[in-house]
C-alpha cells in the first residue's frame, strides 16, 4: 500500500526522535505561555494565588476569583480559538492547494459577521448556542459564494482567484453588515464584536466550544493523511484510490465549522490561519497528519500570547487582539504573497 509514500515515511521515521522532541517542546511552550497568561494581567497576582486558584479554588477570595472567573476561561478560550483558526487554515491550504487560504482573508469570517449582524438586528436575545449555529451558517454560505465565483471565471479555481474572489465577497458582506448595523443602530457594538476579543469568554461558552472544537480538530487530524495526498496533486491521490472530492468537501466542512464557531465566540481574528500552518509546514514537512496538530498547538500559543500582549501592554486598558495578530500577520502575508507571486 501507498508505495510512493513509503520512502518518505522511512525518512520520516528516522526523524521520529527529532519530531517527538519538537512536539514536546511546543507543548511545553504552550504550557508556559498559558501559565504566563494566567499570571500576568491588569491586576498583579502572586504565583501562590495562581496555583491555588487553579488547583485548590476557594471561591470566597477576590484574587482567586479573578484568576478562576476571568483569566482561566479567557486563556483556555484563546488557546481553543487559536487552535481552531490555525487548523481551519491548514485544512483550507491543504485541500485547495492555496498557500494564501485563511478564514479571514477568504471572507469566511465576513459571512459569519453578516449573519451575526442580521441576528443582532432581528433576534437580539438569542442564546449563545443559536448564535453559533447562525455564525456557522453564514460561514458556509460565504464559502459557497466564494467557490462559485472563484471557479466561474474562465480558467478555474486557482489560488489567486480564490483569494481575490474571497476579498470581493468579504468587501460585499462587510458593507452589507455595516448597512444593517447603521440602519438598526448596532454600529459600534458590532465593531467591538468584529474587532474580536477573548475577554468575553466565560465558562458557559467553553462548555459549548470545547467539545465542538476538540472533536473537529481530531477529525481533521484523522483526515490528515488523505489531505497530504491531495495537497501533492490530484493525480497522485486518485492513483492511490483516495476519493479526492469527498476529502475536499469534508476538509472544507471541518474548516468552516472551526472558523464559524470561533468567529461566533471571539469575532473575526484574521491571519492566524495563514501564518501558523506555514510555520508548521516549515517545522514538520508536508505531512498534514503532523501539520494539523502542530498548527493547533502553535495557533494556541500565538493567540494566548497575543491576548496577553493585548492585556498587558497598556493596562488597565485592553487593546484589540485582532490588531495584535494583524501586526504579525500582515508582514507574513506580504512575504508569502511575494513568494507565490514569484512562481507565477
Amino acid at each position, binding site marked *: 500500500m501507498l508505495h510512493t509514500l513509503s520512502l518518505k515515511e522511512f525518512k520520516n521515521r528516522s526523524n521520529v526522535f527529532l519530531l517527538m522532541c519538537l512536539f514536546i517542546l511546543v507543548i511545553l511552550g504552550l504550557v508556559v505561555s498559558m501559565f504566563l497568561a494566567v499570571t500576568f494581567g*491588569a491586576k498583579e497576582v502572586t504565583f501562590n494565588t495562581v496555583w491555588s486558584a487553579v488547583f485548590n479554588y476557594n471561591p470566597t477570595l477576590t484574587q482567586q476569583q479573578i484568576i478562576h472567573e476571568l483569566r482561566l476561561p479567557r486563556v483556555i478560550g484563546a488557546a481553543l480559538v487559536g487552535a481552531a483558526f490555525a487548523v481551519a487554515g491548514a485544512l483550507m491550504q491543504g485541500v485547495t492547494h492555496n498557500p494564501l487560504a485563511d478564514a479571514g482573508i477568504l471572507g469566511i469570517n465576513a459571512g459569519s459577521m453578516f449573519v451575526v449582524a442580521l441576528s443582532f438586528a432581528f433576534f437580539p436575545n438569542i442564546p449563545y448556542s443559536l448564535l453559533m449555529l447562525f455564525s456557522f451558517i453564514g460561514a458556509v454560505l460565504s464559502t459557497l459564494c466564494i467557490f462559485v465565483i472563484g471557479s466561474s471565471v474562465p480558467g478555474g479555481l486557482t489560488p489567486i482567484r480564490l483569494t481575490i474572489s474571497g476579498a470581493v465577497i468579504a468587501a460585499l458582506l462587510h458593507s452589507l453588515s455595516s448597512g444593517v448595523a447603521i440602519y438598526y443602530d448596532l454600529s459600534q*457594538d458590532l465593531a467591538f464584536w468584529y474587532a474580536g476579543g477573548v475577554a468575553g469568554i466565560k465558562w458557559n461558552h467553553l462548555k459549548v466550544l470545547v467539545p465542538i472544537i476538540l472533536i473537529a480538530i481530531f477529525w481533521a487530524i484523522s483526515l490528515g493523511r488523505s489531505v497530504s495526498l491531495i495537497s501533492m496533486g490530484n493525480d497522485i491521490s486518485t492513483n492511490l484510490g483516495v476519493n479526492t472530492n469527498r476529502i475536499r468537501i469534508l476538509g472544507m466542512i471541518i474548516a468552516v465549522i472551526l472558523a464559524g464557531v470561533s468567529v461566533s465566540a471571539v469575532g473575526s481574528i484574521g491571519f492566524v490561519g495563514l501564518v501558523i500552518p506555514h510555520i508548521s509546514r516549515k517545522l514538520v514537512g508536508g505531512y498534514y497528519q503532523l501539520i494539523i496538530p502542530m498548527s493547533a498547538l502553535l495557533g494556541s500559543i500565538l493567540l494566548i500570547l497575543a491576548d496577553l500582549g493585548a492585556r498587558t501592554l497598556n493596562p488597565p486598558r485592553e487593546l484589540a487582539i485582532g490588531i495584535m495578530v494583524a501586526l504579525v500577520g500582515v508582514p507574513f502575508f506580504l512575504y508569502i504573497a511575494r513568494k507565490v507571486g514569484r512562481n507565477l
Partner: protein
Amino acid sequence: MNKKLTILYGIMLILILSACGQTSSNDGKSAQKNKPGSEEPRIASLSIHLTNDLLALGITPVGSVIGGELKDFLPHVKDQLKDTEKLGPVKDPDMEALIELSPSVIYLDKEFSGQDVSKYEKIAPTHVFNLDEGTWRDHLKSVGKLVDRQRQAEKFISDYEKQTKEVKDLIENKLGEGSKVMAMRVTAKELRVFSTKRPMGPILFQDLGFKPANGVEDIDKNLPYEVISQEVLPDFDADAIFVIVNGDDESQTAFKQLEDTPIWKGLKAVKGKHVYVVPDQPWLDYSALGNKMALDNAKEIFSK
C-alpha cells in the same frame, strides 16, 4: 453631424416634457408649508443639549437635531417635542429641512457645526454656543438672556440647587457622609468608568457631593470615560456604584453576566446593596433639563 443635433434636440425635448409633466402634481405641497412665524421666536436648535436647555425655560424649538445613534429625540424629552421638526443627526444636519422651517433664529453648538456658520446665517440669524466652556448653568443663563427669560433661568437654577440639598440629605441618610462612588457604563464588550468630567462627573461629584472612588480621579480629565478590565473593579473600592446599561439587549445580557460573576458579588457596593442602575438618558444628557431629570431620578432612588 445631423444625427448629433437630432439627439441634442431630443434630449432637450425630453427635459422640457418631463418638467411639464410633473409640475401639476407637486405644486400644491410646497405652497402649504410656509406659514409666517408667530410672535414667539421660531428657534431651530442644532444641538440636542441646547434643545433641552430651551425646554427647561419653557420654550419649544420649532426644529431640533436628533441623537445620531438613536435616530430620534432623546427619550426623556421626546413627548415634549411632538410638534418639533426633526432636523437630522447632529453631525449631519438636514439643511433642506432647516430652510423649509424658516426659523427666525438658529442655535448652534460650536463643536459640531460651528465651522461654517455662514451657511446658517444665510437662513436666519445664528448664535453659536461653546458647550465645552462653563457648566450647564452658564449655558442656560446665556440661552435665557437670548430669549429674554433670564428670570426663569435663575429660578430653574435655584430650584435645582434647592433640590440638590434635599437629595444630598437623602443620600447621607442612606449611605452616610463622604461616601465614595463610581459611575460606570456597561456596553456589550466593554466596561467604562466615567471620569470627573461631564456628563457624569459634575452631577455626582459636585452637585451631589459624592467623593470619587479610588482611581476615578486618575482617569484622564480630557476624556469622559476610560475602559477598564473587570479585574481591577475591586480596586476602586467604591461604596456605591451607579451603573448605566446601554439599551440594547447585548449590553443588558452583558450586565446580567457581570452580575453573576463572583467578582461582582464580592464588591463592597454590591454587598451593601448600593448599586444603582440608572437609565442612560437623562443621566448622560448634560443639559439643564437632563440634569434636573437625573436629579429627580436620584431623589426617587434614594427616598425609597
